[in-house]
């Protein structure tokens, strides 16, 4: 178990109902955490179209989590 802070953006923030959560998780990687959170909050977008950043750096799904990380959950983007 590690403790992390989750921050949600755009539609994810609205679905969660708040922009920040503190979590205890068994997830070892960014991908495992995303899957866990997506299930819990009913995120409808496929992981392939979403992104995660760890401590303000975009992260691959295989990236390992460390106690204290701040994890950003990005839904599909739409700039311009």
């Amino acid at each position, binding site marked *: 178990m590690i403790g992390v802070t989750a921050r949600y953006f755009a*539609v994810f923030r609205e679905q969660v*109902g708040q922009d920040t959560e503190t979590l205890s998780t068994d997830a070892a990687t960014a991908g495992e955490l995303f899957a866990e959170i997506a299930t819990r909050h009913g995120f409808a977008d496929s992981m392939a179209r979403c992104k995660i950043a760890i401590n303000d750096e975009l992260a691959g799904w295989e990236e390992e989590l460390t106690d204290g990380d701040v994890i950003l959950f990005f839904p599909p983007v739409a700039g311009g």
Partner: protein
Amino acid sequence: MTFEIIEKPIDVTELIQTLRDDSAGACASFEGWVRNTNEGQDVTSLEYEAHGPLAVSEGEAILAEALERFELLAAMSCHRVGHLEIGDCAVWVGVSAPHRGAAFEGCRYIIDQLKQRLPIWKKEYYRDGHSDWINCVTGKTLDDA
């Protein structure tokens, strides 16, 4: 070469000045405007949300790629966030180059990449009162109820 996220209207005249170079013969620019329809729905306004620091670093990475791939002299871009009305400029891209071929290709590359890669999200508000996050599967969103 700078990418900015701004909350105020985009000042195109001022931005174009940053592209000046005595050896530039061509300047291509692009403005993304808020339009009044999307996929058959009447849009009344838009809300843009960004992760500022990552949007800036990703935007600057894209400008750097364009400067490396095309024969450009300068490249600039900015994206507005917050509440925008129909006709407002949401994103601006400008490049200068010795010749027009590279200018057009570089400008196109930048806007295409920005749209795919920037951590920016767009919520459309429709005339019938509902709203949607664009590109997201919003069937389960609260605001769609």
